[in-house]
């Protein structure tokens, strides 16, 4: 075997090895990006879904088909805290006030998902609780009075004096490649319910 053939052989093996390592890296990178991109898309979709539901529901605080069924809308919010709110509204438009409660579950509740920070968001309507895991890691509400002042929490006894709210929501992937969780953030500042005698 000539030296040139040997040189060719060694060189080919070397370059082949480099190609193999490059391909493996490319494969790893492609997998990571597939996870990451689809995760980001899911996060953004989940955020939009959560916000749509919350905004629709919160705007109807104090609303009833029969306006005399909730005679004093200033008393429509029954309880308010940073991660929880209970209020009166007419969910099914049957002219009967319903009690709706939104609250965040503990992080320890979702041990089945790799993300240690995701929590369940619960909606309770007249005692019937329904929870959903959309990867919410932050659900925080601040409340403001008529003069824009931030109110101390919790507000337990109606009328709570709440004029407007600021809702912060952060959503992350429930699972991610190498624990690289993507997130999306929404801050709805001062969502004023139209039914709280704001004008």
């Amino acid at each position: 075997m000539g030296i040139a053939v040997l040189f060719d052989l060694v060189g080919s093996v070397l370059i082949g090895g480099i190609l193999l390592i490059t391909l493996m890296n490319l494969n790893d990178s492609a997998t990571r990006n597939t996870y990451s991109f689809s995760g980001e898309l899911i996060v953004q979709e989940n955020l939009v879904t959560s916000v749509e539901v919350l905004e629709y529901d919160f705007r109807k605080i104090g609303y009833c088909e029969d306006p005399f069924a909730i005679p004093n809308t200033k008393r429509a919010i029954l309880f308010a805290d940073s991660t929880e709110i209970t209020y009166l509204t007419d969910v099914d438009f049957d002219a009967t006030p319903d009690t709706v409660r939104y609250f965040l579950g503990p992080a320890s509740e979702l041990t089945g998902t790799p993300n240690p920070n995701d929590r369940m968001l619960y909606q309770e309507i007249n005692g019937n609780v329904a929870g959903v895991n959309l990867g919410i890691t932050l659900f925080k509400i601040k409340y403001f009075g008529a003069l824009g002042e931030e109110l101390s929490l919790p507000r337990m006894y109606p009328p709570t004096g709440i004029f407007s709210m600021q809702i912060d929501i952060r959503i992350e992937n429930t699972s991610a490649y190498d624990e690289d969780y993507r997130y999306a953030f929404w801050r709805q500042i001062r969502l004023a319910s139209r039914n709280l005698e704001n004008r």
Partner: protein
Amino acid sequence: MLLALGAAILLSITILITNKNILTTEDVLYDSNFEITATSIGTSLIEDASKKKFDEVTDTMAIEKTLPLTAPELLGTEPGEDPTNRLEFDDFDDYNGYTFTDSTMPTAIFDYKCKVEYVDETDPNTAISKKSFHKKLTVKVWSKSMKDTVMQSTIYSYWYFR
């Protein structure tokens, strides 16, 4: 060995193209993420403005004609109100010319600017230079991290019932 070198070049080109595609996708995803937050800022500003009274003069009295309303060229904060402090705004048109830089968002730093003008009910997309019972607020939100500017607008009409 030449064949192996050729394969390496071919693979390098493929990797470069793949890499470019990945970065483009990443860019689009980040941009849409920022735009979601920018949308939340825009809707928040509109919410905030919509709960204020229509005009300075409608605070204490009801009007039936447009004459007492603020003149189009004077839309904005009144003397004594700080144009940089939104907490001091007491009517819808105080938002005219309001600009702010919001660095409290976890995603990026956002700038926004508001513009309020009178519009006619028959053509709400065109500003008019006379008083009317309809004011249009346009909010522009942008960021150095974003490619484009998010623009949202709302029309606030004066109403009064006895």
